[in-house]
């Protein structure tokens, strides 16, 4: 069912400046050339009856309801498949058309249950609407003939039900799965009257290849595919546009509400990042927001082995302020700090860093981008001049060659992956650089031209080899480089990469990538037309993460693939607001807008606005905070919406550091792993409970809108403000729009951003200022932000994490479609049906050598620690490489990962850990201790909740 707030115009919009003027029912209308007659009519207020048409899908012309008469043409053409033409005269309502449409409807209704009053889509059913629109008054065929009304429902999917008795076989679901999602999981089986929708090979939806994106449910014009929440709760009363709080695609949704109850989330057709598409997380995995595990009462305790004490907000806030002031008095003002959240809004993130810098007087503030995309910030700033991706997502539709390195978009950024697959089906060529055979390498109607299956840790070597080919085979875009880049730096770089030690042949033994294949990939990237690079944490989470980002930017500059649509360097951000949290000054060395704290003019502008002197030296990064905690110089930490005890590497080191602190304050929805080491718990609010903005991977700032009251009484920005006030620092915002106004006043790249402008434009891609008042979809047009682009030297330095006889395998980590990062949200939803534990994937060869069978418990030991996971044997891996996800705290994936990190930013080297595997029969010592500790902490929480109740 479409959103209750949307008016479907039948066929996709056409983007062209050329127009045609035609006459529809006597009215002159002008539309872009190529627009269907159906859409031309709809855009001018005339709704032509339709069933198989929806603007999400290409016209299909099967339902025969949208017939029209066109002067000078024979018969009754379908308006969905007929392009509007200049001078055309169309009639949409005539007696003949009325008879034809009623005849069609009679046939549909003769095989459809007449249970409208108890049907979940009653009032929003397109079949019902069309029956009314065509004036259906009788069904001459009766209802007793052959029919499908006894067809059995499929309720296997936790989020929607398939009721084939209501199916009109319009194929919208099948086409949505094909055209929009690109999974091709559905089909029409049978012929004629026996035609029916089938998931996979006549399987259940849950058992099929369906990825539960919801596109079919949204496309269905009847109640054949319906959300279970809609079936349970009934129709929504209102619709509020907001932004998803999962990955960095930042999909726009309509939250359909009944009072304060969320009935369903429907992807917004007008959403500028997602254009009406969604994935299983954003569309359905919302149950966490009202999960019984949510804590809604502030709590404090002196020690982590004591029971939590439920307290009032006032008591909790005053306790935090008193503890931080006590610690600062005893250990100095730099003995405390804060961590902002990439899941919270820009306004909330801005306030936390302001609190730390202005109220606590230190620059000890960092964010989880430290452990994901901090190398992106560094690398792109050095080369291009701005710490952000260069394009919008739509740009991929004009790419001819797409290079995906260290990213798994179908799992991590599924809505973007669907767009990418659309473009690949149109003929764009794909290069994948990844140690694993990710889904994109070979998917329905998609096959990578080249898969460079490199060894983990050799990204820079592979990127240098690609550059070597481009330079030595004369594939550099000399005109672009001469006009747009610093000549001395380019000359130095060209000499460097041209050296034989950077050739594919020399590096082949190190990287494991066939030299001829690499050369072919380099030639394709350099000469295949518009070439765009998309990358993820497989690039950044390495000891040379920043070097790899700079190598990527070098490649794009050398081939002239920057500064226009269809090309670019595109970091796929992991969390919903990673880009925003970085933009908002979360790093310890930068104010909002990526300006160094030592810049006197910038610092003075903040000092003037904030009314206090500010420190001019960089503060501690998260790993530095841990070290300082362990050496006794860092004692107090305010953590908003992050779970560092699960997400950061070397868990034992992190928990030891947390245990060494005197006041750990966690502001979150749940008692997460970090909160088990906390002294103060402040109950946070979900994205449904507050106003603000998120900024996605394409620098797109989108509104988050409050649809229900905060469960614990305050939005997160209000809690931070209360702490500031208790510390004696005035913050008196009454709405997040005022915070954005302050951000805009102090940050040149945000100068034109306001809630009013966001309301008007829908979303804005920064920079937004007087020169670009409606934002900047493509950056570096004409010139780079830094002026001339700067080629950086990118020497390959092998990681210190070596395989040895004791640790002969390389472990790399990643995430899966159904789960999200530490799993705090998705583990509390039915998404666990798809993924209820983290598995260790290994190649059959490595399994056989060790006598490991699929499903065996396997001990995974590294230099940092050991854990136990169940094995899954998979030929996606290459021999010598193993893989796991990290969504479940008990898995201990980060007990195994080491503290090796990127040389420039400290971003951990999650992607390369040398390990050994052995078959075992019991959990690791850490897992047993973790289980016992968790049980104790839950008991301590249970006592507090009982007291609060």
């Amino acid at each position, binding site marked *: 069912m479409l959103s209750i707030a949307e008016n479907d115009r039948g066929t996709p919009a056409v983007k062209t400046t050329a127009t045609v003027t035609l006459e529809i029912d006597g009215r002159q209308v002008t539309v872009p050339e190529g627009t269907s007659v159906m859409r031309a009519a709809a855009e001018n207020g005339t709704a032509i009856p339709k069933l198989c048409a929806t603007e999400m899908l290409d016209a299909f012309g099967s339902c025969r309801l949208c017939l029209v008469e066109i002067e000078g043409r024979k018969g009754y053409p379908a308006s969905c498949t007929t392009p509007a033409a200049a001078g055309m005269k169309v009639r949409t309502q005539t007696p003949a058309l009325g008879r034809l449409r009623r005849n069609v409807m009679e046939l549909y209704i003769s095989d459809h249950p007449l249970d409208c009053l108890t049907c979940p889509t009653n009032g929003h059913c397109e079949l019902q609407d069309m029956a009314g629109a065509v004036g259906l008054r009788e069904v001459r065929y009766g209802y007793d003939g052959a029919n499908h009304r006894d067809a059995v429902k499929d309720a296997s999917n936790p989020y929607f039900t398939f009721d084939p008795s209501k199916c009109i076989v319009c194929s919208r679901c099948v086409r949505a799965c094909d055209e929009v999602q690109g999974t091709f999981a559905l089909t029409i089986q049978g012929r004629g009257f026996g035609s029916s929708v089938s998931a996979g090979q006549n399987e259940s939806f849950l058992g099929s290849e369906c990825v539960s994106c919801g596109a079919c449910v949204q496309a269905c014009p009847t109640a054949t595919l319906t959300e279970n929440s809609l079936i349970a709760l009934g129709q929504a009363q209102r619709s509020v546009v907001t932004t998803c709080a999962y990955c960095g695609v930042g999909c726009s949704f309509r939250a359909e509400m009944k009072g304060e109850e969320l009935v369903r989330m429907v992807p917004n057709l007008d959403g500028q990042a997602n254009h009406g598409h969604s994935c299983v997380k954003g569309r359905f995995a919302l149950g966490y927001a009202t999960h019984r595990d949510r804590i809604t009462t502030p709590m404090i305790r002196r020690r982590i082995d004591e029971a939590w004490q439920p307290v009032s907000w006032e008591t909790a806030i005053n306790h935090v302020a008193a503890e931080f002031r006590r610690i600062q008095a005893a250990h100095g003002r*730099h003995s405390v700090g804060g961590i902002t959240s990439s899941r919270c809004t820009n306004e909330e993130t801005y306030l936390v860093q302001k609190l730390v810098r202005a109220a606590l007087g230190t*620059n*000890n503030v960092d964010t989880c981008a430290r452990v994901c995309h901090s190398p992106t910030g560094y690398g792109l700033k050095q080369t291009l001049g701005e710490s952000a991706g260069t394009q919008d997502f739509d740009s991929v539709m004009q790419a001819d060659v797409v290079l995906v390195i260290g990213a798994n978009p179908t799992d991590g950024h599924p809505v973007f992956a669907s767009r990418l697959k659309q473009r690949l089906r149109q003929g764009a060529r794909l290069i994948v650089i990844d140690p694993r055979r990710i889904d994109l390498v070979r998917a329905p109607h998609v096959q990578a031209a080249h898969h460079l299956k490199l060894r983990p840790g050799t990204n820079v070597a592979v990127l240098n080899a690609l550059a070597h080919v481009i330079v030595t085979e004369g594939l550099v875009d000399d005109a672009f480089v001469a006009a747009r880049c610093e000549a001395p730096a380019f000359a*130095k770089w060209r000499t*460097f990469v041209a050296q034989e030690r950077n050739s594919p042949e020399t590096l082949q033994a190190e990287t494991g990538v066939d030299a001829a294949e690499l050369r072919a990939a380099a030639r394709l990237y350099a000469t295949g037309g518009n070439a765009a690079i998309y990358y993820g944490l497989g690039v950044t989470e390495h*000891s*040379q993460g920043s*070097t790899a980002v700079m190598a990527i930017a070098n490649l794009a500059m050398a081939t002239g693939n920057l500064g226009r649509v269809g090309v670019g360097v595109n970091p796929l951000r992991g969390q919903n607001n990673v880009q925003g949290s970085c933009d908002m000054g979360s790093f*310890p*060395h930068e104010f909002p807008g990526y300006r*160094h704290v*030592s810049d006197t003019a910038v610092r003075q502008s903040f000092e003037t606005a904030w009314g206090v002197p500010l420190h001019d*030296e*960089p*503060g*501690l*990064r998260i790993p*530095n905070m841990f070290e*300082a905690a362990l050496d006794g*110089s860092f004692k107090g930490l305010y953590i908003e919406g992050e779970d560092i005890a699960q997400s950061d590497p070397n868990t034992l080191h992190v928990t030891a550091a947390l245990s060494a602190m005197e006041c750990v304050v966690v502001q979150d929805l749940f008692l997460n792993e970090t909160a088990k080491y906390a002294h103060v718990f402040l109950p946070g609010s979900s994205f449904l409970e507050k106003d603000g903005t998120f900024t996605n991977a394409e620098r797109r700032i989108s509104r988050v809108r409050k649809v229900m009251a905060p469960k614990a009484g305050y939005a997160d920005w209000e809690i931070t403000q209360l702490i500031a006030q208790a510390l004696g620092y005035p913050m008196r915002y009454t709405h997040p729009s005022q915070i954005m106004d302050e951000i805009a006043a102090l940050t040149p790249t945000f100068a034109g951003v306001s809630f009013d402008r966001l309301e008007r434009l829908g979303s804005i891609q920064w920079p937004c200022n007087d020169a670009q008042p409606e934002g900047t979809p493509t950056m570096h047009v004409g010139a780079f932000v830094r002026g001339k682009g700067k080629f950086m*030297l*990118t*020497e390959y*330095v092998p990681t210190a994490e070596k395989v040895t006889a004791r640790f002969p395998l390389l472990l790399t980590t990643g995430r899966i479609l159904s789960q999200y990062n530490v799993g705090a949200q998705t583990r509390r939803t039915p998404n666990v049906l798809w993924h209820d534990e983290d598995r260790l994937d290994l190649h059959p060869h490595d399994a056989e050598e060790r006598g490991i069978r699929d499903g065996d418990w396997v001990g995974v030991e590294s230099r940092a620690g050991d854990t136990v996971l169940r094995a899954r044997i998979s030929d996606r891996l290459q021999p010598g490489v193993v893989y796991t996800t990290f969504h479940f705290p008990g898995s201990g994936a980060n007990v195994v990962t080491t503290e090796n*990190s990127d*040389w*420039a*930013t*400290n971003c951990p080297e999650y992607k390369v850990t040398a390990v050994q595997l052995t078959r075992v029969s019991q959990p690791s010592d850490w897992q047993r201790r973790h289980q016992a500790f968790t049980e104790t902490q839950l008991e301590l929480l249970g006592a507090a909740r009982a007291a609060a109740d």
Partner: protein
Amino acid sequence: MANDIARYFASEPDHAEAVAGIGTHLRRFWEPRMRAGLIAHWRATGGEDLHELAREAVARLAEG
């Protein structure tokens, strides 16, 4: 960590530029107590276990 930074700058053919690059990086990204710890190590040991470029960069940092 300082050695990792030095290994990145080691490919810079201009020695002075490499040393300056390390120093700038340490000043712009390292918190003062971390820099102080590195300088203390250099003073106490002459830069034991430090990459040659890092040792030079720390020496310059120590000079202020």
